[in-house]
């Protein structure tokens, strides 16, 4: 069955990442005399890894839907920036500098709505006007990097928002958004592999003509997935914000490359939502491991260790590369009248 097959390919790649994490551990442990493992792998470490992974996983799931249907949404990073910013703006508009938990949830919803509105425009450019997907996606990033901080500066007189509030944890100190993300990931998997829409999405990316001749409007499928990808990236940004509690718009903004990692995550996961989420979790763990190293005083050059996920991406892509992109990615589809 193709599902099994996907999983098989995915696990090889994820296995690569796990290996990487283990090697990192090994290196760390050789550097230290008797740092207890329980100081390194704590409950907090696991939950921070999860928290780190959520925005990335959301963006990744969105991105893979779009790409599965034949549209490469390279603008995830930009949509995440917009998502984080609009969540912050909404929270501030509703509750000033001391928003309530209700406002946080409203902000999440608003961020999704704003992202959907923006992605509709983006999707029209991509699908109706056949924009070059790479270029338009990069443009979204540029636009996000420019206009989100600009608008922040107009609202707050500073590119960063004042401290707002972060979402309260539910059981075991875990954010409810982690649960939400898990729910979305699983639902995405079910939709992709167990419903007709999933079939259509896959067909739209692999052989749009086949779908067209089956009487399904290819571009409608693509509109749906691209808008979904924007919504998920926006939600990812908003989740990041809801965890952090304020918007940082200086430099590369608080999103700081998570959208790019999202793309990498779904490539690792071989376009499987669960695989993508697992990859996001591994990236999260790698990052948090670096933090743990510092905390327990394993003296690695943190600037270099911070580069590990990037190196991991390159190594694993090369060693187990050859992610098979859907055949029709990047090609606008024009039904014969």
């Amino acid at each position, binding site marked *: 069955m193709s599902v099994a097959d996907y999983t098989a390919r995915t696990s090889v790649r994820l296995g690569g990442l796990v290996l990487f994490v283990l090697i990192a551990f090994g290196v760390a442990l050789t550097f230290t005399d008797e740092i207890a493992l329980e100081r390194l792998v704590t409950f907090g470490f696991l939950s921070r890894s999860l928290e780190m992974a959520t925005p990335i996983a959301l963006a990744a799931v969105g991105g893979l839907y779009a790409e599965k249907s034949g549209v490469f949404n390279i603008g995830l990073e930009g949509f995440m920036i917009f998502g984080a910013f609009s969540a912050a703006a909404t929270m501030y508009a509703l509750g000033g500098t001391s928003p309530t938990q209700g406002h946080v949830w409203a902000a999440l919803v608003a961020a999704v709505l704003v992202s959907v509105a923006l992605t509709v425009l983006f999707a029209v450019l991509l699908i109706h006007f056949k924009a070059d997907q790479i270029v338009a996606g990069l*443009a979204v990033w540029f636009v996000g990097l*420019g206009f989100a901080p600009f608008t922040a500066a107009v609202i707050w007189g500073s590119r960063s928002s004042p401290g707002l509030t972060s979402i309260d944890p539910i059981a075991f100190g875990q954010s409810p958004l982690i649960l939400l993300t898990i729910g979305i990931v699983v639902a995405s998997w079910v939709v992709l592999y167990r419903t007709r829409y999933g079939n259509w999405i896959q067909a739209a990316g692999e052989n749009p003509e086949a779908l067209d001749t089956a009487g399904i409007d290819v571009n409608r499928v693509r509109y749906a997935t691209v808008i979904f990808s924007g919504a998920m990236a926006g939600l990812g940004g908003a989740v990041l914000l809801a965890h952090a509690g304020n918007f940082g718009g200086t430099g590369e903004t608080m999103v700081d490359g998570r959208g790019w990692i999202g793309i990498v995550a779904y490539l690792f996961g071989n376009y499987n939502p669960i695989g993508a989420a697992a990859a996001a979790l591994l990236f999260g763990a790698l990052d948090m491991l670096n933090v743990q190293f510092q905390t327990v005083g394993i003296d690695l050059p943190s600037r270099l260790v911070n580069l590990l996920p990037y190196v991991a991406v390159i190594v694993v892509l090369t060693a187990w590369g050859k992610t098979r992109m859907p055949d029709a990615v990047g090609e606008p589809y024009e039904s014969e009248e």
Partner: protein
Amino acid sequence: MLSATVLERIAIAIASTLSAILIGLVIVAVAGYNPVQFVNQLVVGSFGSERAIVRTLRYSTLFILTGVAVAVAFRAGVFNIGVQGQFIMGGFATVVSIVGIAPLLPENAVGGTILIAIGTLAAIVAGGLYAALPGVLKAYGGANEIITTIMLNFIAIGFVGWLVAGRFNDPEATATRTRQLPEYVELPSPIVSDPNFSLVGLLVMLATVAAVAVIMARTSFGYDMVTSGYQQSAAGYAGVDPKRMIVSTMTFSGVVAGLAGAVFVIMIQGYYTDPSGVGNYGFDAIAVSLLAANNPVGVVPAGLLFGGLESAGSHIQINSDVPVQLIDGIVGLVVLFVAVPELFRMIAKRTGLGGENR
């Protein structure tokens, strides 16, 4: 990209820019600033005075060089998003090699010239190698170059940043930076005397553009490259080894990016800092190249436009309180519009402008 005639490309580039600026102005107005004044400052700030022009040319020199680097790769169908990283590696290599070798050479103009040559060579080698790496990984490992080059940008920033703060930090300086180039390592600056701009740098840039244009249009290598970009399968048929071509294209692109890094260091900065603070030339270059439809000659006007915008940005900073992020946003919009030639074709058709379709 979609095929189009040169004239059409130019029309689209102009229309994109104007549309983006127009939207930018609306945003300026909505945000409560004066759009008329903004336009005025755009013009004055980019070409309104000798200082402004020199500043524009300084930015443009780098935008054009990095833009050409991007164009080379994109033309050949290889998406080198890593020009920023290659630019950083190149510039850093220039500093390290010049600072390292300077004590061995006489401290005069002759020594300076030799050092410039060595530094430039180092930059070219470093940029070329740093680009060849993702080329090799793509050709022989199947690793998508868009992703690997983006990763390599992060890695270049982190790695050079680490070296600048550590091994190569200038012990005399309080700020985080390398030692400075000796002051006799300096481009002669005829006519315009500006400490950060030299006509020689501009000429180097123009010569590079010309050389790249000639290579692309008039050599077998260029023909192989461009053909690969248009139609991989036909290039293979014509005897191009696609794997080698990917590597040579990336290397070529990286060489130009490295050269841009050398110009940056020798003409402008004179030392190396944390690379997160050397500007985003390599990223904006993607926009520059696309605006020029990846044509190396077209990169010159496109680079001038971006140089002008950047220069106007700095003028606007000094002379008004419009946040500079606006300029970045407008640049993003220019790129966005450039990506959608079809939009303008449609508008042209509707309005009866633009004449023939096709």
